[in-house]
């Protein structure tokens, strides 16, 4: 349904999206997980036709977004990160307008609009102006406007940013409903929990590059069930490196270093809690002082840390 092939977008010298490739099928949710500035919106904008890719291709339902743009757009529903509504037009008129923009007419338009109003829970407020709506209600309407023409492929760009928990839960329901109805959903987020909960498979991107790809379980497996141990404090660089090297050589520990800096050392290892006393001893013998210890069990967030040496929510 959605195919992205070596997609690249430059802004001058900045490579915002760097040779990204992935594929997503019917009835699935594909996640694009990455911190702010990773290039998620840029990728979405290239697929939606708002931006022209510098190189590479994207196709929607078999239509190339550049050479066959009109057909590609007809099959695409976009829910942009920023609200895109006529705040001075009643909710129902917003839906009708965008329905017509995609060629819906007459009875088909009427039935789709009332279906969508029901889905987004705004039946009672259909005649009201969005400028009187709460943030969550506007988000829901924003979603509704993107799917009113029942597109086979839906792009959702960080739909939950700044949304109250109730609206967020409702949004998840809407995404799942669209997926169950057979849509292919591309969902970008920088919230690991959202990606884990919603996505069948996902790609992790950072600095425009795709750094990992697979189903949630495949990606978890990459961590080989290791914990991530982060030590904050002061650690003399050379002495600490030698001390850590002795730890790596020990057979009873499958330890790896993610980052080693003067104020922070991040390691990954199995059953970290059992080995904490040993590790503390070695580090302090080398002159290191630990002021804070953070121990995390394996999840996508630690995977991101493992792959990039960075926190997801920077």
């Amino acid at each position: 349904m959605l195919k992205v092939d070596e997609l690249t977008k430059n802004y001058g010298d900045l490579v915002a999206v760097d040779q990204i490739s992935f594929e997503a099928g019917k009835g699935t949710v594909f996640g694009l997980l990455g911190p702010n500035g990773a290039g998620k919106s840029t990728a979405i904008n290239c697929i939606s036709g708002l931006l022209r890719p510098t190189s590479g291709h994207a196709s929607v339902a078999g239509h190339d977004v550049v050479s066959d743009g009109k057909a590609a757009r007809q099959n695409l529903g976009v829910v942009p990160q920023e609200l895109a509504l006529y705040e001075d037009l009643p909710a129902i008129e917003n839906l009708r307008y965008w329905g017509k923009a995609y060629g819906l007419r007459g009875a088909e338009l009427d039935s789709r609009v009332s279906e969508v109003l029901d889905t987004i829970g705004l039946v009672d407020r259909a005649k009201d102006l969005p400028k009187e709506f709460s943030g969550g209600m506007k988000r829901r309407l924003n979603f509704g406007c993107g799917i009113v023409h029942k597109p086979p492929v839906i792009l959702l760009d960080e739909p939950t940013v700044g949304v109250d928990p109730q609206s967020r839960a409702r949004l998840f329901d809407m995404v799942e409903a669209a997926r169950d109805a057979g849509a292919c959903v591309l969902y970008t987020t920088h919230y690991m929990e959202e990606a884990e909960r919603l996505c069948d498979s996902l790609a992790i991107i950072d600095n425009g590059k795709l750094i990992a790809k697979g189903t949630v379980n495949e990606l978890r497996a990459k961590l080989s069930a290791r914990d991530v141990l982060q030590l904050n404090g002061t650690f003399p660089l050379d002495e600490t490196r030698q001390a850590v090297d002795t730890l790596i050589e020990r057979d009873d520990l499958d330890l790896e270093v993610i980052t080693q800096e003067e104020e922070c050392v991040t390691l990954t290892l199995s059953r970290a809690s059992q080995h904490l006393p040993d590790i503390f001893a070695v580090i302090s013998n080398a002159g290191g002082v630990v002021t804070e210890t953070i121990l995390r069990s394996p999840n996508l967030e630690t995977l991101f840390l493992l792959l990039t040496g960075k926190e997801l929510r920077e």
Partner: protein
Amino acid sequence: MNFALTSFRKDLSRWRQDLMQTAIWFAIPLTVGGLITMLMSGDGAQPHGVLLIADQDESFLSVLIAGAYSAGDIGELISVEKTTVEEGTERVNAGEASGLLIIPAGFGDAFLDAEPVTLTLKTNPAQTILPGIITDVTEIVLDAGFYAHQLFGEEINTIQSLVDESNDAAVAAIAVAIQNKIEVVAPQLFPPVINVEIVGPPATDVQVSLALLYLPGIIMMAVMFSSNGLASDFWVERDHGTLRRLVYSPGQLGSFVIGKALAAAVVIAIIGGLTLVLGFLYHGVSWAKFPSSLVWVALSGVALFSWFAALQMLFSNQNTASVISSMLLFPLLMAGGSFFPLAVLPGWIAAIGRLSPNGFVVDKLTSEITEVGAWIIDVNSWLIVAAAAASGLSICAWRLRSGFAQA
């Protein structure tokens, strides 16, 4: 095209809620127009012209008539110079004077004997206002003379003998004094004995007064404010993200732009139409000219709207865009005859003014309102304005396609 209508209805429905804004676009020109009309009836800055008088009669009465033009308020508008018929005709044709009044020999005697007599007034075809004023004054003077004759025939004979030796100013003072008295009794009308034969520009079915010449400029002021204001709606839609949504949807950018232009045409037609109605009522312009004037105003408004929009869409942020287009607005209004009618501006300034887009529109609208007949604007002018609208809208559509919609 279907989507153009959808977009048209969408924009009208959105704009309908912003009545305040629309009221302001209407109120500013209305206030300015009201002020100008007030100034016109008081002592505003007024044009000045030269009336040549070829007095072949040299009687007391002919001196009285000549003096009437230099009395009071009229004297500030017109200076009177004596001349001969030949020299005067030459000077009027050369555009050096606003008019030439020929008082034939025997006029005084004919008047006193109540015999019909004809005065000839040649006016300068290149000027619009001053000849009109001179015609008005001549008619008043002659009416006054007629009533004076009816009422004070005896006294006039006496005065004639008394003032034979005095200077023009004294005669003029008496003439005005008589005229003032006459106005009180004017309601009892008798057919005038003296006719004025006007030689010059064709008679118009509208009395062209100075205030009427301001009307097209005032209407254009309303149109300029509203078209410039409406043009910023592309920026409003960009900020609301709806333009991006439009670009996501399958290729209807042209229809979208046309829909907005149609909605702008309706708003401009309403604002321009209201201003026209007020102006037509106030100045008594023939309603036969209303449809053509309204269509001209609305079409020109769309052309201005499209170019304001195109211009605003070339800038990278809305503040710059609106500052630049507002900065352009006032010089254009100034040059294009909204503050001073093109007809009273010196020739070369008026010529430049007519080249400004709104000056062009004002010039044609002035002809439509002041000349004989309706639908007199030439086909070329209609085509120019239609082409301007089409090209402006194409630029808007091109800007939408070439990245304007991106945040």
